[in-house]
């Protein structure tokens, strides 16, 4: 097991925690998910193709573990932790009350999305992956990524107090 692999893995942890937080809705579950993903990545290091993108590989592991965990605890649903609802950074990211409310609404709106839409929206809008990269991470056709993204935004925007989309 190479030290560089481990260092690269640690370097990805902040982004993996962000992705996991967007999936789980609370930091404790997100950290459990990331920790499990790191363990799994180390165990399956041989499956990682040198030269390919490690972040995409890790996003996929996190997402797969999340689905697995979600199946096991299907009744639990996504819990938005009040401590995490825009406040987990001590408010540094949003000093104005209206900004903090917007962040809390964004977290709640994400949690309310169906899991598949939430995952796609997180990878595109938060992690900054292209549609093609998202399709590769999730092993989905490009069209499926786009349709899930569209449906996610259609549900999300009104909850953020925004338009539902232009009239066609």
């Amino acid at each position: 097991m190479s030290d560089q692999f481990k260092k690269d893995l640690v370097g990805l942890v902040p982004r993996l925690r962000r992705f996991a937080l967007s999936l789980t809705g609370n930091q404790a579950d997100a950290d459990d998910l990331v920790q499990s993903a790191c363990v799994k990545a180390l165990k399956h290091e041989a499956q990682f193709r040198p030269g390919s993108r490690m972040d995409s590989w890790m996003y996929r592991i996190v997402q797969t573990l999340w689905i697995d965990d979600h199946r096991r605890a299907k009744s639990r649903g996504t819990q938005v932790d009040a401590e995490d609802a825009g406040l987990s950074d001590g408010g540094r990211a949003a000093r104005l009350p209206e900004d903090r409310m917007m962040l809390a609404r964004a977290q709640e709106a994400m949690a309310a999305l169906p899991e598949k839409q939430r995952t796609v929206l997180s990878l595109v809008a938060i992690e900054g992956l292209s549609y093609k990269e998202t399709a590769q991470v999730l092993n989905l056709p490009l069209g499926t990524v786009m349709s899930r993204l569209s449906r996610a935004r259609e549900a999300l925007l009104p909850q953020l107090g925004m338009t539902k989309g232009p009239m066609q």
Partner: protein
Amino acid sequence: MTVPTVMDKDRLAAFVDGELSPEEAAEIVIHLADHPGDQVYVDDLMAANEALAQAFSAPLQEPVPDPIREASMKSPQADTIVPFRRRPLAVVSAGLALAASVALAAVLLPELQRGSPERIVALGPVPLGSQLNDMLGTLSSGVPVTLDGGEDVMILATLPVENGFCRELEVVDAAKDRLDFGIACHDSDGWTVEVMLSEPLSNADLEDGFVTASGAEVQSLQPFLERLGAGPALDAKAEAEAMAQGWVR
């Protein structure tokens, strides 16, 4: 009031998401100048993206938590391993014939049904005293075992079902480029392998979906597990207790 617009909102979203070429993006910019309804939607999408990015940004400003750092810098511990469900290529359920129209599965079927002596996992009752029977009965989930033949075996999870327990296991045979996956369930007669999956190891994590005995493609093992009434995987302590009680509920 929403202003009527002309452009497809997916194309506007693609513009916001940076999916368009510079030339296409430039066309959108010019278009937006004359279409306030589209401009409002683009502004909303950008604001939503920004709100989402900020809402989940806290981990970027925090140090890596110690448990995660430790997990990333050392060899995995058995108790911390969470089952990682693969998406195997072919599945065969005990006692059922595989649809002949599924070419690849049909190729695999004869070998699976024969229960090739080379395979660790084979459909049907697990012989008492066999290596597999011993592993199913006494091996904790997440503990890797390398057999004399070089195969790596691991019990992935123990799931409580209505009449007892089922255990998921995988066998990786790197020399033969083969990954076998099985679900064995315990009843009063002992262990029986109920499901058998197989795929080339080089295809692991690449192929999507598997084929049921009825020939219908599905995306995961969840339907099968649900038919068994499988509950959440046992944690290490509960699994140890079940093991100590001889897998009797």
